[in-house]
């Protein structure tokens, strides 16, 4: 039931991608996305796709896991491609015309590019979330945002990261709690499966109110527990797990930027 929903989709593994520093991975993810969108001819797009497939292969995460993520977003891809088909330059050659809509070769070409880019984008970001634990991700985000403290947002970065960590930690707990409350209300004859929209929305009240109350209770308890352990924000706090930027990470950066350079070269030369 509810517990089958996966949040944070870390896939246990020991690949070079898993071992790369999460900070590097986040920066390289952004770089890769930029490169994929820079690719504007068939050669550079094919090269970008090959690079992404290589990354997926190295990550050691089964292909069906990537396909699962793609499936969720497939309607959006199809819709985008479909719209793009009609937006080509008429000079590229008309395939057929229906009413006021014209399908051109240029449009089909565009649609193909758009779809490929979105698919690659999904694959790249999946490669990040599959190979990085949610905790590593929040750590990395905190470190990457740390320059903000020089512009007067000193505690904001730490607070943001702490909030993300706590949120991730409590998702499974709250799911379990929701299930318990749902069962308890069902035992009192609550009907959660039938009825029209209005009735169904009303049926949520007996679940949401106890859930909200318990979430607030939990947050008070957690705040007290943190204070008891002398938590007073990010100042002077050290980490148990230090992130180390190693030789491997420099190689990863080098490879990704080389891929980027090749894409730009292919764009210019061909």
């Amino acid at each position, binding site marked *: 039931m509810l517990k089958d929903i996966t949040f944070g989709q870390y896939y246990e593994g020991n690949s070079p991608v898993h071992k790369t520093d999460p900070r590097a991975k986040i920066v390289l993810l952004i770089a890769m996305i930029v490169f994929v969108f820079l690719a504007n001819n068939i050669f550079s797009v094919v090269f970008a796709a090959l690079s992404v497939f290589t990354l997926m292969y190295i990550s050691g995460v089964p292909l069906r896991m990537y396909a699962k993520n793609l499936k969720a977003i497939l309607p959006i891809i199809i819709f985008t491609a479909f719209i793009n088909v009609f937006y080509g330059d008429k000079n590229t050659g008309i395939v057929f015309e229906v009413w006021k809509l014209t399908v051109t070769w240029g449009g089909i070409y565009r649609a193909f590019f758009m779809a490929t880019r979105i698919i690659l984008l999904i694959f790249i970001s999946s490669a990040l979330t599959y190979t990085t634990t949610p905790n590593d991700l929040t750590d990395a985000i905190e470190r990457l945002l740390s320059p903000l403290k020089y512009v007067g947002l000193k505690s904001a970065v730490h607070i943001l990261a702490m909030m993300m960590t706590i949120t991730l930690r409590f998702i499974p707990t709250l799911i379990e709690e929701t299930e318990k409350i749902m069962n308890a209300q069902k035992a009192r*004859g609550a009907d959660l499966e039938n009825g029209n929209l209005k009735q169904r929305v009303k049926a949520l009240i007996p679940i949401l109110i106890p859930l909200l109350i318990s979430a607030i209770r939990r947050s008070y308890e957690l705040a007290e527990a943190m204070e008891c352990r002398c938590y007073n924000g990010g100042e002077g706090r050290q980490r148990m797990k230090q992130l180390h930027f190693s030789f491997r990470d420099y190689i990863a950066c080098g490879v990704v930027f080389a891929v980027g350079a090749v894409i730009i070269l292919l764009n210019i030369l061909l």
Partner: protein
Amino acid sequence: MALLQVKNLTHSYGGSSPFVHDAVSNISLDIEKGEIIGIIGHTGSGKSTLVQHLNGLLKPTEGQILLEDKDIWENPKEIRKVRSKVGLVFQYPEYQLFEETVYADIAFGPKNMGLSGNELDKRVRDICRIIGVKDEYLNKSPFDLSGGEKRRVAIAGVMAMYPQIIIFDEPTAGLDPAGRETVIKIINDYRRETGATVIVVSHSMEDMAMLADKLLVLNDGKLEMFDSTEKVFSNGDRLRKIGLNVPIVTRVFAQLRNLGVDVPEDVFTVEKAVEVLKKKAGEKNA
């Protein structure tokens, strides 16, 4: 015919994944009208899974649950009717309170059964009288009550459906001794008034000794014993083998017997112990 029959019940968690695990396996039992049955077993022995089958919150992987000789899953659309006949009070029931007033919260269950107007009002007021929810509480917010009172109101919310069978999962968990006694009194009051069958899941052997006519012992999802409370508690060694025990007074009396004091074996409650010891003192003086 028994009121509630469990036939070869098996429930597996994990579906078709490699982590399939039978939470309860091949359990069969008959529960007669008016009995008070205690279910004991260590954590993870399948107690909660078993009771959630009895009111149709879980569907058996294999086997059947018969209520008055009818399979409760015969018509899945009617499962809510089963839930009003077999009430289930979860652990820490006070966390499910949600209405603005105590009255409205108690009325939630009977309302779901389709009752309204005078009939609904009568039900709520009757149950409050039976288990001692004070009139002045009815218009208060349930969140303003003390912990013990919240639990009393939450239990009333299930009892207001007047189930023929009422199941309690750890009803005394987290309460002080006075609170525990109150809950046990509530259970007894409801039963006296309605003649309902009561099933109680508990870790406390003392509560069980006070309440239960029969005990059902679960071990690792299997039925270990199902017999009268006296018989089960006279099998101390077998209980200890599966991580359970007999009530403390029973253990004290066993020690006394080891020391050569002539006391009976079937002492499970403090009241009985006091009675036996008084009698003994009387004999000595005479």
